[in-house]
């Protein structure tokens, strides 16, 4: 029985240039053995060391791949054509292989990582090749950027446009007393490159907006959200969903924190958890409500941990789980998060296909705050001297704030007690309300006006402006 074996161009150097060879045999395997016996140079290109066909060599009997027949046991008949067909394959080396080789100094620096089989050299190279964007260099951004830099993440992008302020240093540990007044990016870059000079810091000294978010986030593998406000949080979430990037979420308030990993391709996004933002003003910021300094250290470290696990592919991620942390009780709780099929951006029928106006979405600027009459600190000082006890000064802050500092002669009525304590006030008296910076004081004014008090004003800039401009010996907070 004579079968024609058709030889592809690349193998013809091994068949003296012949494009086909007549061979005898009862099965494909026998024909193949005959071919290799007469043309030995073909062997190493067609067979693996164990004698099996290489995976990129296909044999077609007439028009059919022998893998769909009986493989090399397929019987052949006279006149059949056996064709050797190449498949052509290859590819770039895996990312970690060439791009991120470790120097001897790096081996030593990351020694404690290399000792962990879950990290090892390959995990450390992945960290070196990784590009992580942290949004914000504040409370959460500080610990997480420090740990990411220490861990050897090759490129860390930081978005921030703020300057280092004395009130930051109680928790923002990437900054220091020596960098007060400088930009947070300068300050963080200096500290992080001192910690690990192998890390490349990419600076984004700007506010993240609907105009620049896709371009900025698009350059990174994974985003860590350390923002302190709802518009930016929704912006980061939506941009990550649209770009298909994972988003490591964290938030803190007073003594409580939350963390999760959002990744719409494989689980829920932030909007699956909170489809709508809270009404403006309902949730105070850390600047208004305070925050325990260690708390962002814990939540930011969880974010750094999840980021590193994601990069090296170790363990079980926080995807689909929301961790709630209560610092006072020292208790972690966990909620299961599911992808919401009705989610407006990652659900089955999304209504959001591009970035929107997040300030408007979060109701900021929609309803103008109450705008009552104000008095400057200098005017108040003047009038207090002239009118004495006829001018009633009401401090609407909390008692613990009163303990920090208060204006001599003022009366403490916390804002939340004011509606019940109106009877204590003389309806004909001239009243000035004040708080820390002026916001609560304006709300107090609204309550008093509504209750029929006529001669009421609010101290512009609160006790902070007073301590800054009039009674400069008072402490500020």
């Amino acid at each position, binding site marked *: 029985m004579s079968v024609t074996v058709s030889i592809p161009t690349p193998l013809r150097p091994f068949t003296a240039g012949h494009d086909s060879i007549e061979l005898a045999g009862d099965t494909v395997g026998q024909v193949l053995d005959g071919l290799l016996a007469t043309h030995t140079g073909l062997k190493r290109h067609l067979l693996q060391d164990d004698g099996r066909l290489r995976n990129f060599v296909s044999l077609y009997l007439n028009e059919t791949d022998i893998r769909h027949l009986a493989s090399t046991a397929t019987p052949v008949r006279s006149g059949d054509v056996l064709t050797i067909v190449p*498949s052509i394959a290859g*590819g770039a080396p895996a990312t970690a292989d060439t791009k991120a080789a470790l120097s001897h100094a790096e081996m030593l620096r990351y020694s404690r990582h290399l000792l962990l089989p879950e990290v090892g050299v390959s995990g450390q190279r992945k960290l070196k090749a990784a590009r992580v964007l942290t949004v914000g260099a504040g409370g959460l951004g500080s610990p997480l950027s420090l740990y990411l830099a220490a861990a050897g993440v090759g490129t860390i992008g930081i978005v921030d446009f703020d300057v280092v302020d004395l009130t930051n240093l109680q928790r923002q540990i990437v900054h220091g007393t020596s960098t007060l007044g400088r930009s947070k990016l300068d300050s963080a870059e200096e500290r992080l490159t001192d910690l690990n000079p192998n890390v490349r810091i990419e600076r984004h000294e700007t506010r993240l907006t609907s105009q620049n978010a896709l371009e900025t986030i698009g350059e990174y593998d994974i985003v860590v959200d350390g923002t302190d406000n709802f518009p930016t949080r929704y912006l980061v979430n939506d941009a990550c969903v649209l770009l298909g990037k994972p988003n490591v979420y964290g938030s803190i308030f007073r003594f409580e924190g939350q963390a999760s990993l959002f990744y719409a391709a494989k689980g829920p996004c932030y909007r699956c958890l909170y489809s709508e933002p809270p009404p403006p003003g309902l949730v105070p910021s850390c600047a208004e409500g305070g925050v325990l300094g260690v708390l962002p250290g814990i939540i930011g470290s969880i974010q750094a941990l999840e980021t590193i696990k994601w990069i090296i592919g170790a363990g079980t991620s926080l995807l689909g789980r929301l961790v709630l942390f209560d610092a006072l009780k020292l208790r972690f709780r966990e909620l299961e998060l599911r992808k919401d099929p009705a989610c407006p951006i990652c659900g089955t029928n999304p209504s959001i296909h591009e970035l929107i106006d997040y300030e408007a979405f979060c109701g900021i600027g929609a309803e103008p705050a109450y705008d009552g009459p104000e008095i400057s600190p200098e005017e108040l000082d003047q009038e207090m001297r002239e009118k004495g006890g006829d001018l009633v000064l009401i401090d609407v802050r909390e008692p613990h704030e009163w303990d920090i500092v208060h204006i001599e002669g003022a009366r403490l009525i916390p804002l939340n007690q004011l509606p019940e304590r109106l009877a204590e006030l003389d309806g004909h008296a001239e009243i000035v309300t004040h708080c820390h910076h002026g916001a609560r004081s304006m709300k107090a004014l609204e309550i008093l006006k509504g209750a029929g008090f006529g001669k009421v004003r609010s101290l512009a800039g609160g006790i902070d402006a007073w301590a800054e401009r009039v009674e400069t010996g008072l402490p500020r907070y």
Partner: protein
Amino acid sequence: MTLRLSAFLVHEIRRAGERAYPSECCGVLAGHPGEVKDVVKLVPVTNRRTDDPHRYLIAPDDLRRVEAGLRAAGLEVLGCYHSHPDHPAAPSAIDVEQAWPWYSYIIVRVDRGAAAELTSWVLDDDRSAMSPESVDVLSEV
């Protein structure tokens, strides 16, 4: 060995790499064999590897179809081209392992979406490595 092709075809390969970024592009080099391999046509082929952006595969069925079409035009498969997104234009271990003898393997490096250097390689007889071959680029008249 030498591979000869026009500046236009070089440009086309670079563009294919940029379009496919961050995945790899692949296609067949077609032309006339000889002392100098003359590439006269590129045949883009669907990359059948969708599981890993750092791999490409020209499946045997696809190659058979391409070969049949080329034969009618008097052309032969001379090799293939593919891109290395964010990696050097040098054969990887997997390129060497999967390589056929005699074929020319053009590799174009694509850095962050922009095509960089372009090289061509041929498998050594003992399959241990691939050696560079010179690429003769004909400028357009």
